[in-house]
């Protein structure tokens, strides 16, 4: 078996574009899933009961479905719901955002719940409203606690973006598979893909480790 690594170099433009899409998907998903997750968490904690139930149902639904199923589902259902064709990239983004929002909501909720009741009471004893207590006392502390979890979610998300390749989003995994299919250079392309994912993922994992050390809670 002869290996031809030239195939990787020849397709560098496509690979670079794919990598850029992967990174874009990760950032865009988090940009949606962070604020939405916070909103869902607050709804789940403080909203009127039926709304709270809906938020809980949302979280439990998407947290317990395989992401790849959500991706397929979005691909077939979104056009029906919206009435027009949605690009694969937007479809993939929607699926990822639905999934990660559910995870983030759970993370935020756990973070807020981990702040003991006495902290809110101390804030309220000063004359703060519940909203002020949440904004000035609970959320800043909760954010510190959940930062390591959010960072882990980030790294998982970075790798999970590869799942949207099944609906032909031209991100790194899809591009690699395309080249593989056209050139039959299976080993070369899979290796190249692995190396790119690893080179990008490893520093992120190290960053997570650092964040976990940096923001360890001391009380």
């Amino acid at each position, binding site marked *: 078996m002869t290996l031809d690594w030239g195939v990787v170099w020849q397709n560098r433009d496509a690979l670079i574009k794919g990598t850029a899409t992967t990174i874009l998907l990760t950032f865009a998903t988090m940009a949606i899933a962070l604020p939405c997750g916070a909103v869902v968490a607050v709804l789940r904690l403080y909203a009127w009961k039926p709304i709270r139930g809906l938020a809980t149902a949302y979280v439990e639904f998407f947290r317990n479905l395989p992401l790849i199923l959500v991706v397929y589902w979005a691909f077939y259902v979104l056009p029906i719901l919206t009435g027009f064709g949605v690009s694969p990239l937007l479809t993939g983004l929607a699926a990822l955002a639905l999934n990660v929002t559910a995870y983030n909501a759970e993370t935020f909720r756990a973070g807020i719940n981990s702040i003991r009741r*006495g*902290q809110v*009471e*101390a*804030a*309220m*004893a*000063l*004359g*703060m*409203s*519940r909203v*002020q207590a949440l904004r*000035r*006392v609970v959320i*800043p*502390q909760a954010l*510190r606690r959940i930062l390591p979890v959010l960072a882990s979610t980030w790294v998982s998300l970075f790798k999970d973006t590869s799942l949207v390749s099944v609906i032909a989003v031209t991100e790194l995994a899809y591009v690699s598979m395309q080249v593989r299919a056209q050139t039959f250079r299976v080993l070369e392309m899979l290796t190249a893909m692995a190396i790119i994912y690893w080179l990008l993922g490893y520093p992120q994992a190290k960053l997570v480790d650092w964040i976990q050390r940096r923001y360890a*809670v*001391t*009380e």
Partner: protein
Amino acid sequence: MIAENNSGGRAKGTGATIIRYRGVVKRYGAFTALDGVFLNVHAGEVVCLIGPSGSGKSTLLRCTNGLESIEGGDIEFEGTMLPRDERALRAVRQRMGMVFQSFELFPHLTAQQNVSEGPRTVLQMNQADANQRAAALLDKVGLADKAPNYPSALSGGQQQRVAIARALAMNPDVMLFDEPTSALDPETIGEVLSVMKKLADEGMTMVVVTHEMSFARRVGDWVAVFDAGRIVEQGPPRQIFDAPTTERTRDFLSHLGWSG
């Protein structure tokens, strides 16, 4: 020195009544935590609430600033019934400082920021004035040099002194202390009690839930003994500790090994 003031009835009782508890009832499900409590707190007085754990002292304190709601009777603060609605209650809480057993300092803020947080957020004070007030109060509790420290870098006694400064930063009319020394190492209890004594000497009105009998005796102007959700006896410390009139008070004090 203050104890001498109490030779007669209620020496400082000439001040206006600031807090009036009238038949306060508090229930948690089937459990009655407060079963008709009557007590007056006068301006400038130090009223100590003593009694066994679970007898309702802390509950009464928490009802005073509306952290807990009451089911019966009423609580009057500065001549007005304690409001039920949140907004009005907030205005009342601003005038009552509260110090908790477990300090409850904000761990993400420095000592200085803990003290300036109330003025900043609640009173909308500008940063410079709030900082100045915080610095003055930290100095008052003897912790000027700890201003930039986070609570995790402070001892228990230091944390509680910061908590006292934090409560004082709102310029309250009354200070409520909920077992302020119960979570402290014995060697740091003294520094907190002496800050409280200083406040009392300055004429601060204080309601103190405490197990420190010597503090209640030395600093208190009025002592209320709780048992099973009721006040079984109240009077000047001299009466409570030297000549208790009820069996329950005598029992409680003898359990503590108090040899009045």
